């Protein structure tokens, strides 16, 4: 039996068989190397499911999707309107001065269609409860390269019109007497009046075009109503040391803090230092307590709390944010303070100054 079984084992292997075997082994090794190399450039489609069933039923995420890219935030369902609606009349009709004419129709956009006109920026307007955009273009009859685009944003309320105006305003641009507040950027004009935020945008720079733009803006400004409703933050934030044209109103994410809603911010000169102060009227004292707690948690996470003071009138917390200082206080349902101040004593004094003014007003 043993001899018979040993007969299956050959003591000698021919040269041809050795060569073929080596080639086969090399081939296997080559395939292995190729697969490995291919794996280094991962193809995400390689093992994806081919039959991705698209259910027609609306699904609800089981978990909160909190990391919402702002580009999607506040976006509305797809528009029901097909196209901008021509407006037969309105404040934009007949605006063209001599030598200019209207280009196309006056068009309007609602919250559902705003992205068609200003995609990428629409969400900011929607945050401020945007109602309607009415716009038109004027073109120079002699020189078609010169045109003026006019945008009238109806924001529903004066505070919202001021808010969107204020957050779009760039530093250092010259103020101009248009509406409640306005400024010029080269040959373009921006102002707000009542519930309206207006942009008169010139195609080029140049004195002549700037004059035409100003004339158009002035005519338009007279046609817009203003109910005179005051803006709380503009009067609540003290005017002493305040840098003109720096008050801003944020409906959300003031100072990039998700819990700081309905907040007014202004820049001040305190001594030689620039100080950013903020003030927010919360819905109730309890809500203000909650906001202060959130602020303190933020200070702890990204810096450290270096001081806390509680009196019968207010509670304040001071944070060192690694070279800059924040002081936040709560008084009743008000949350206020200063942020990103480079000097601790300046920060604390500025916060106290703000607090004192509020106390006087109470």
């Amino acid at each position, binding site marked *: 039996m043993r001899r018979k079984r040993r007969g299956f084992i050959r003591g000698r292997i021919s040269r041809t068989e050795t060569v073929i075997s080596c080639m086969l082994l090399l081939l296997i090794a080559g395939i292995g190397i190729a697969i490995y190399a291919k794996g280094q450039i*991962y193809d995400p489609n390689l093992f994806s499911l081919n039959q*991705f069933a698209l259910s027609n039923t609306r699904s609800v995420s089981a978990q909160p999707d909190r990391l*919402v890219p702002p580009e999607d935030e506040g976006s509305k369902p797809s528009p*029901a309107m097909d196209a901008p609606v021509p407006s037969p009349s309105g404040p934009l009709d007949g605006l063209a001065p001599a030598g200019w004419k209207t280009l196309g129709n006056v068009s309007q956009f609602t919250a559902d269609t705003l992205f068609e006109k200003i995609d990428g920026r629409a969400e900011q307007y929607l945050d401020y409860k945007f109602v309607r955009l009415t716009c038109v273009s004027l073109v120079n009859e002699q020189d078609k390269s010169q045109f003026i685009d006019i945008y009238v944003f109806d924001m529903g309320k004066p505070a919202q019109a001021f808010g969107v105006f204020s957050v779009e305003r*760039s530093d250092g641009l010259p103020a101009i007497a248009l509406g409640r507040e306005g400024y010029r950027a080269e040959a373009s004009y921006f102002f707000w009046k009542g519930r309206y935020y207006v942009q008169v945008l010139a195609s080029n720079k140049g004195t002549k075009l700037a004059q035409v733009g100003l004339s158009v803006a002035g005519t338009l400004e007279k046609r817009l109503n203003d109910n005179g409703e005051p803006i709380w933050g503009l009067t609540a934030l003290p005017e002493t040391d305040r840098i003109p044209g720096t008050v801003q109103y*944020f409906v959300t994410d003031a100072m*990039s803090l998700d819990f700081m809603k309905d907040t007014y911010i202004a820049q001040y000169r305190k001594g030689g230092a620039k100080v*950013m102060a903020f003030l927010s009227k919360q819905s109730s004292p309890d809500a203000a307590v909650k906001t202060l707690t959130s602020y303190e948690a933020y200070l702890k996470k990204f810096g450290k709390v270096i001081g806390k003071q509680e009196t019968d009138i207010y509670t304040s917390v001071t944070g060192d944010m690694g070279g800059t200082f924040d002081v936040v206080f709560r008084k009743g349902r008000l949350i206020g303070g200063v942020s990103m101040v480079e000097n601790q004593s300046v920060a604390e004094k500025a916060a106290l100054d703000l607090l004192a003014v509020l106390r006087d007003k109470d």
Partner: protein
Amino acid sequence: MTEKKDGLTRREFIRQVSLGTAALAAASTIPQGISAASTIKNGMGYRTLGRTGLEISEVGLGAGSISPSGSNLIRAALSQGINFIETSSNYKNAQVETAIGQAVRSMGRDKVFILTKAGNLEIGRMLDAPASEVEKAVRTELEGSLKRLQTDFVDVYSCPYMAFSPKEVALPAVQEALEKFKKEGKIRFKGLSTHSDYANICMTAIEEGYYDVLQFPVNFATLLPHIRNAVLEAKKAEKSAGGGGERKGEGGQERAIIDVSEVLKAAQRKNVGIVAMKGAQEGFLPPIMRDQVKGEFAKDTKLSFHQFAYRYVLDQPQVSTVSIRMANMLHLNEALVLPQKTLKG
């Protein structure tokens, strides 16, 4: 023991070789993911931005939604290990660059790599313009950015911004201008961004070899054909049912959903850095499909959808960084944990 004179019978040898090959094959199909692509330091992953050699955080701070009062967000991000900021001259009327400038001045310029873009220029409208005019326009944009950012240079300057056609990436006037700025020390590397026809535009740029960094949409829909088809079908159905259908992109263009898998491979071959954007944007994956996509990869994931979507983008080893638009600290906190997570959570 003649049958084992080399230690193995042929049968055993073949069996072992087969097992080895199978194991190798199996190993190679595992997505390389973060462990292969990143270096982790203090919880943040860092990757090389292609041939620039810059070691940038894989979580990039997309600055487009930062509030003008939000330089504290930038400071917080930098203090937590993010060292790459992606911005543009036209974000919030340039106020975002101003906020970045304030933060960078106090934190130190050496702590951060900045990519900004010629956001107010439409290069597509300058295809026939004289080179001197192009240079002047780009210079005005760049110098405005440098002033607001309070820096002498940017690490990556993207021009064209939002390229609409391959012609824009091969425009000699732009390339000459960028070379000049590079020699002047105002920019270190050249980039471009594109939202439409991006596969063609990027492939042209890669083949031409001029640009060091590309920025384009990378997400489930642009990577996976079956999801892309499902999204397109869903949009088509919505449109025919009377809904708005396809949402338009910037400039009124249709928002394109295009396969970028070949672009990723080509970029890797040519060592071009990739800044992924729109990783979780609704226009590329409607909310109605989110649970289905989650279910396909990790049904019981502990991540929010947006974390999940960005994590998936980071699982592509060719991606250098994913630019995540952050508006507040909540967004920052959720982005900061991504390097330590898998799709399962």
